[in-house]
């Protein structure tokens, strides 16, 4: 039964939230309290959060700015940006040594002006694979051939491909098929019927809910997921279980 109001039926762990102001624009979400309020409103219990300046300006500075957004209540999980530079890798390795790293997100692999190839990334990817840190990668910011060719050399590395859009509709299947340890984050992916189709082809274990809040609203994709033919068990995996599992398997 469809209703004019919507409540999630299961615990939700949002895999894709960025906080903070851009250098050239203010965020819709002004502070941690607003983030938690919006999470409560939409039934999101936990969120994996990175700082937008780490994604767009400096991973090192942005990761520092993230600290002020973290809570003590265990609902906001930090995600650290990293790029293949000595300073950036050292920062994340220091955080790791303190037990603070559950996942990382690669800085835009196109924007750094170097290819996403082992001769640039091997040191970073070998370490991430060795310490089993799930690695989030923006699909729109990657070259598909480099992505598959390079990640195939690190079969134990768990990756989450973030931000696929209908413009990537022809990418998704071959990439998921070629990278059995890759998951697809769903915030922007809405060609008709694709959630069920990907479930049928790859299993619900390969799909992860994220909102991309505050660029996108939290609620619409959750509403969508709750009105698919996913079973309750599959829905639970997509909305929280898969993300929880890959973060915990690292430990």
């Amino acid at each position: 039964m469809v209703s004019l109001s919507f409540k999630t039926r299961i615990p939700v762990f949002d895999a894709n939230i960025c906080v903070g102001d851009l250098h050239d624009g203010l965020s819709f979400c002004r502070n941690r309290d607003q983030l938690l309020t919006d999470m409560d409103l939409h039934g999101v219990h936990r969120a994996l959060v990175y700082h937008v300046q780490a994604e767009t300006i400096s991973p090192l500075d942005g990761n520092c700015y993230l600290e002020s957004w973290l809570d003590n209540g265990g609902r906001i999980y930090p995600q650290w940006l990293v790029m293949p530079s000595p300073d950036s890798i050292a920062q994340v390795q220091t955080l790791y040594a303190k037990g603070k790293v559950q996942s990382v997100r690669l800085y835009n692999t196109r924007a750094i002006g170097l290819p996403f190839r082992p001769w640039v990334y091997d040191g970073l990817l070998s370490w991430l694979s060795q310490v089993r840190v799930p690695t989030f990668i923006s699909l729109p910011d990657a070259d598909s051939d480099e992505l598959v060719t390079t990640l195939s050399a690190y079969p134990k590395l768990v990756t989450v491909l973030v931000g696929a859009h209908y413009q990537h509709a022809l990418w998704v299947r071959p990439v998921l098929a070629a990278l059995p340890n890759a998951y697809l984050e769903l915030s922007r992916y809405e060609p008709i019927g694709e959630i069920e189709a990907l479930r049928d082809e790859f299993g619900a274990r390969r799909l992860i809910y994220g909102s991309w809040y505050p660029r996108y609203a939290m609620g619409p994709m959750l509403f969508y997921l709750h009105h698919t033919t996913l079973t309750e068990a599959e829905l639970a995996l997509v909305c929280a279980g898969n993300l929880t599992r890959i973060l915990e398997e690292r430990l």
Partner: protein
Amino acid sequence: MIEGSRVIDFHGHVGRWDIYGMVDNPDLMLQAMDAVGIDHACLFHIFHPDSVSSNDLTARFVARYPDRFVGFAYVSPLISSGCVDELSRAIDELQFSAIKLYPPYTPWPLNQPQWYPIYEFADDRGLTIIFHTDSGSQSRPKFLADIAPRYPNANFVAGHSGNTAEPRREAIAAARACPNVYLETCSTFRTPGVIEELVDGVGVDRVLFGSDMPLMDPRSQIGKIITARISDEAKQKILGGNAGRLLGI
């Protein structure tokens, strides 16, 4: 139906666009519609500038489920000579209910004379026109404020409500200035607060739910309305009440 209210999706496509995963499958569309209580989907085909081909494809598609799909006529001023005749055929013979225009597929901004015969036809017949609107030079929503007052018997719908922040403000301004301008909600940008912004800007009676199906799944797009911080009465009007009034269905 959702809680006893009819739901009309005002923006959908016929045709394939394979690189974007857009498939031409009425059954898949119905499955998604049924999952969230969408009663009717308004559909158009926009890939043939001769218009006849597009409208015939739409008619064939709508005929598969005529109680669920509503055909909209598509014409392009790229072939200006037959535009009005084709509109007459589409409305009178194919029984289409409104008109879809796609300015980015032409060189002309939507307030230029090449479009006027279409507007005159809509004005004469009291029809509704839905435009693709965005930040592009042909499809800025601010142009609606130039034309809408001149054709008071027609209604003008800003598809996507401009799509992004600045053209969205233009769309709201055009609707505030012109009582025959409406705002439609589909967008790949599911920006927080947009539905509330539209309602605050023009009130609940001139906002229309649309999905852009099958390019986008109607379930995520209707989710924008359901999860917006607006009243249930506003949701009912946006989801179908306003569209039913415009289309006379």
